[in-house]
């Protein structure tokens, strides 16, 4: 699974992307976030504020219950401030 991080999330985690092998028991976006938090304090602090997390699966915005598979590209970022 390809993971992309942007803006404050990228800075908190300390990298802009990584490739992981998704454990079989992780089926949803929220499951993925919990799994990543088990990898280190940097993920815990990056995801600390639920309402400041946005997720796109294969470049489409999704909710926390959206399904994920090892073939997906997942982007995690704070609320957008474009325009």
């Amino acid at each position, binding site marked *: 699974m390809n993971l992309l991080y*942007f803006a*404050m999330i*990228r800075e908190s985690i300390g990298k802009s992307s990584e490739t992981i092998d998704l454990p079989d028991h992780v089926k949803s976006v929220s499951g993925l976030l919990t799994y990543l938090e088990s990898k280190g304090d940097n993920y815990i602090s990056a995801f600390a504020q639920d309402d400041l997390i946005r997720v*796109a699966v294969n470049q489409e915005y999704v909710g926390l219950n959206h399904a994920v598979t090892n073939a997906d590209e997942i982007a995690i970022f704070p*609320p*957008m*401030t*474009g*325009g």
Partner: protein
Amino acid sequence: MHVSVQTEDFDIAIEIGKLTHNRKDIGAIATFTGLVRDIHGDKKIRKLTLEHFPEMATKELEKIARLANDRWPLQGISIIHRYGELLPGDNIVLVVTTSQHREAAFEAAQFVMDWLKTDAPFWKKEETPEGVHWVAAKTEDDDKKDRW
């Protein structure tokens, strides 16, 4: 329909020209340009850096242009969004809409701007004399989008 995500500046006259060239059926052109201001709230801004998610940014701009196009009788629409390092006075974003009538052109341009604020994957980082920080999203922007 034309969208672009780019570092280079844009020229409003050229972008309008692309939509109006050789046409005599356009009655209304609305444009909106967003620029970097030297003050944000009580902070002096030295520089604004726009980070973005490239592939998705282009897709989202296309989606927003299509939504506007489906909703109003437009003859053309352009959206250009810059990224990278910008200084006060620099252009950030341009929207141009053309239509037979003024309401469609105005409303579609406003709609696009409201959607860009919440749905375009760009993130602003401000450099001030006190340091560097990410700009927080405004909940009022969600409200503005929701009115459509």
